[in-house]
């Protein structure tokens, strides 16, 4: 018997074990890359944005309007313009996105769902530059100008609607997930009390999924603020603060795009281009914050059910 124990060798094949370690290491490095990327983003933004901030006088950030070449860097203007477009976009995306979600999760039968869901997926696949062209060459002339002949060729309304269309699928899919996470038991309880379908949908399911829907909206806002091409094409380049949706103006993303296309470096005026990184940093912080918030909100309903 005791001899037996000597016979048993469980140390296994060292080559296989070595290979395991190597593979594991390779994969780990790959995962590490994602961290490096985030670091790279943050560092490159901060490094350059800092150069900008030290290069300019503080009151240049409060000067009237966003005119890099004149050393006027009123970020507030860009922010206001971005907010206006985001607002309009959400006015489009929330009702249509939520409606779609409610229909898909509460009304559509599995078969019709399989037919209807792809509509949103296709829409989600349309490149934003295409919607930018659509906003500039169709929405403005053929829709908005028909209602408001006074509208400029580049205006917030068209850009906002374009962005809104762009994020309908996002809002729809995230809030639909939330609604489908609502347990069947709640629906049965509602029907059991003699509720009609719309009672159940709007008074039971939607309230129960509210946090998820909120997350969807926040995500939508973040996406709208970050959207570039639609804005660059349809919202115009006006650096003077403008609150009229029928006229255009430069947004955060628009400013970055514009600077990257032609900033007109004149010797001794480097900060004109550096401002690009400053705006980029602001944009990054803003969207990151929104995403983190929506993360939190989502986790709330995830753990509820």
């Amino acid at each position, binding site marked *: 018997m005791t001899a037996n124990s000597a016979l048993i060798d469980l140390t296994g094949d060292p080559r296989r074990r070595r*290979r395991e370690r190597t593979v594991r290491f390779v994969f780990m490095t790959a995962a590490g890359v*994602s961290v490096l990327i985030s670091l790279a983003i943050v560092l490159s933004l901060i490094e350059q944005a800092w150069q900008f901030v030290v290069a300019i006088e503080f009151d240049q950030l409060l000067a009237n309007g966003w005119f890099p070449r004149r050393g006027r860097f009123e970020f507030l203007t860009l922010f206001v313009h971005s907010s206006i477009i985001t607002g309009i976009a959400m006015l489009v995306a929330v009702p249509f996105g939520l409606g779609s979600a409610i*229909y898909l999760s509460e009304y559509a039968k599995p078969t019709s769902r399989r037919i209807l869901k792809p509509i949103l997926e296709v829409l989600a696949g349309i490149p934003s530059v295409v919607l930018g062209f*659509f906003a500039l060459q169709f929405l403005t002339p053929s829709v908005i100008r028909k209602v408001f002949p006074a509208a400029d060729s580049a205006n917030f309304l068209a850009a906002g609607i374009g962005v809104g269309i762009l994020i309908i699928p996002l809002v729809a899919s995230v809030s639909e997930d939330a609604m489908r996470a609502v347990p069947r038991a709640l629906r049965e309880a509602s029907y059991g009390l003699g509720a009609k379908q719309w009672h159940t949908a709007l008074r039971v399911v939607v309230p129960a999924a509210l946090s998820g829907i909120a997350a969807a909206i926040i995500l939508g806002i973040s996406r709208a603020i970050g959207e570039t091409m639609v804005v660059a*094409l349809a919202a115009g380049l006006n650096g003077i603060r403008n609150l009229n949706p029928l006229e255009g103006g430069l947004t955060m993303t628009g400013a970055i795009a514009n600077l990257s296309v032609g900033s007109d470096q004149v010797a001794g005026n480097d900060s004109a281009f550096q401002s690009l990184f400053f705006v980029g940093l602001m944009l990054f912080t803003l969207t990151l914050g929104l995403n983190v918030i929506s993360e939190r909100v989502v986790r709330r309903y995830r753990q509820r059910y």
Partner: protein
Amino acid sequence: MATTSTSELVGRSLRRRGRSWVNTTIAGAMLFSLLFSLIVLVVLLADTIVKALPVFRSRGLEFVTANLSSQVDSAGIAQGIMGSLALTFLVIVIAFPLGVSAAVYLEEYARDNRWTRMINANIRNLAGVPSIVYGILGLFLFVKLINQGLFSVADGISGRNLIAGGLTLSVLVLPIMIITTAEALRAVSRELREASFGVGATKWETIRAQVLPVALPGILTGAVLTISRAFGETAPLLLAGAVLSQYFSVSSDAGLVDLVSNQPYTALPLIVYNFARQPETEFVQLTAAAILVLLGMLLSVNAATILLRDRVERRRG
């Protein structure tokens, strides 16, 4: 007797009072909000086709094969198509291996600790970063560094080349690739893994021979998303060195290395953007035509990947 009347009373009280119009209107409203997206799609496509028609009529497919030009009537999008295909290829060879490996590590190897959760959250957030910010990263990290000869293959190499663009787009889509792959891996049953370990397979053997094959369709679905995203992106390339101009040309005798590392490039969406900025009606038409080509290529890229996925699924039965 009394009961009969109860029966009638009950019968009446249970009677259906006509279709509830509230119910129907609300259902209708919800359905409409969904169909709105469809309407938009149809209008967008119809409008584009109408605007593009003159180009196809007068030039047929010639403008697809023609290069950029300062003359509207001879300007074409060939360089954009080549550029986009090249970029997509680069994304496939860079982002897929990286993304899948990262996902495999996070799902299969990493223990569930704060560090791992941090990385996962970080990846989800990266997926939400505006694409133009990735452009800034590309400009700073790739264009600039390559210019300063960091990755330089030869001296005086230009940072405004396909490699810079490809890297930028790869970084952009990496999070999507990781997330979708991770989901696909999560869907693989624990039983399958235990079966494999039970016959003395190592982790890697289990992943390679059992888990990845089963997860492949899901991974390919991620691939569809990734490719179409990369293919349609414009903003990051504005900064990542793609040429945005009336005219540029590529040397006819540039070798492959030279092409990706040293020649100017552009992409189809950028050409769309540049055309769309020009107000003349000729350019409006040209833009629409270019958009149709863009959408067509997107569609076929997706279709191809989806077909591939179904093939895989069927092969696995």
